[in-house]
């Protein structure tokens, strides 16, 4: 298990994942043979119309739900992904009775690692993430952007090679979001992890990802994939970027009408 020590980033192959949800008198298909290849150390983004099953897909990736068909390979191996993957749910899920620092070390605590050591390590990340001086505050005393950064620190401190981020910036205002996008990118470049991001923000997807996987309306399958080759850091207003954004948006709208 890759933990603590730095190893080669992990590649993920999602092979024809299918999932049904039971309803009274039958079942409805949610995921229809979703297949995605993610290169080790790359940034992959999943985008799609709302309610298409993105969160269900992430939960399967995180090992919280079992797929009805298909499989997920991490570095060509099958098995419980939970030792390899850190999952960040849509809401920040910070524990209100814990200080910022003690929220950050949650994963270490679950794994039974010494608390003081974890705290010392987390403190260094607080400085790196612009939260120095806020270690002893409670989540309710932090701003929305700070809470989200804290949730990201917690995700990083799980020491997994793959990060699953479910709309991590979705609840923030446009300005804070733009700042955190730049910042997230620099952190990713520094840490060299594989990231799978779910977002409904097309611009965010283009700014950050190596590959964008566009899901169809429910039942979701991969409608189209885009490789984003513009060099980083990318400008929100560069012409090819704006063009790609238009192309993806058109496809999403078409999907939304099909739903």
């Amino acid at each position, binding site marked *: 298990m890759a933990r603590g020590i730095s190893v080669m980033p992990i590649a993920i192959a999602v092979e024809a994942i299918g999932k049904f949800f039971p309803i009274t008198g039958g079942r409805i298909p949610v995921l229809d043979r979703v297949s995605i290849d993610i290169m080790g150390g790359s940034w992959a983004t999943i985008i799609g119309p709302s309610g298409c099953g993105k969160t269900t897909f992430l939960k399967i990736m995180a090992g*919280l739900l079992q797929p009805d068909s298909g499989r997920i390979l991490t570095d060509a191996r099958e098995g419980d992904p939970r030792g390899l993957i850190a999952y960040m749910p849509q809401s920040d899920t910070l*524990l*209100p*009775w814990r200080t910022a620092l003690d929220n950050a070390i949650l994963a270490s605590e679950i794994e039974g690692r010494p608390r003081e050591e974890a705290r010392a390590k987390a403190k260094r990340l607080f400085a790196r993430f612009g939260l120095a001086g806020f270690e002893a505050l*409670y989540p309710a*005393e932090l701003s929305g952007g700070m809470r989200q950064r804290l949730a990201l620190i917690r995700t990083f401190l799980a020491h997994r090679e793959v990060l699953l981020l479910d709309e991590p910036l979705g609840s923030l205002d446009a300005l804070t979001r733009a700042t955190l996008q730049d910042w997230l990118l620099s952190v990713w470049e520094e840490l060299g992890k594989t990231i799978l991001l779910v977002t409904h923000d097309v611009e965010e997807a283009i700014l950050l990802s190596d590959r964008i996987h566009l899901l169809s309306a429910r039942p979701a399958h991969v409608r189209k994939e885009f490789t984003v080759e513009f060099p980083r850091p990318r400008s929100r207003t560069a012409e090819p970027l704006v063009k790609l954004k238009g192309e993806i948006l058109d496809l999403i709208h078409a999907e939304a009408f099909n739903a």
Partner: protein
Amino acid sequence: MLKLLKEYTGAFLLLALFLLLWEVGVRLFNVPFYILPTPSRILLVFFSNLPLLLSHGSMTILEVAMGMLIGGAGGIVLALIIFYSPSLERAVYPLIIASQMIPIFAIAPLLVVWFGYGLWSKATVAALIVFFPIVVNAVDGLRSVSGETIDLLRSLHASEWQIFRVVRLPASLPSFFSGLKIGITLSVVGATIGEWIGAKKGLGYLMIQSNALLRIDLVFASILTLSLLGLFLFGALRIIEQHVLRWRTRVEVNKTLRVKQ
């Protein structure tokens, strides 16, 4: 103490006005003291009988404390059973709710028959009254954790025990304390009822005895002692709560400061 006076100025003024009207009214209409004594007389009797009142009060406190302990522990165990076992919940919860329809007055004499005139019959009455608010609030608290938080912990491979210890237990504490605070006031009532029905000691016993002797001033002094006792227990519980939930205390204090600015 000064802060307390300042915070509850209105309540103190209202109480003072009420006592003044009482004092004046009784004197004006020449009501005999064995029917309705004046507040000043009650206070006098209270202080001159302080050792007696305290000796009976200590018994009542002991009953309340034991009742809280038994009812609290039973309530926690039941809450955990209800929370973790849906089938037992369906079996147990309706019965618990139905049991609350039985007036405690009705079974208190039975408890005296079964557990005697001493401490345990009263502790049982108090425990029976206390456990219900504790069960209901503790179950609510255990259920208050969001599915996403549980998902997060599962994704970290946390065991059920870890999920309980790290998330559910601390998340349930605020409503658990609400249950305790309701319970502690009710348990004073429960212990007093128990003492009315059959006891050798305790403030409820003292009230019944004094009432029979037309020592109404001593009845009132007992009521005063009981109220002070209830206030003291409630205050002690609140101090414990503020310490255990200091994260919430601090967040709330900061919020009021911000509003004032």
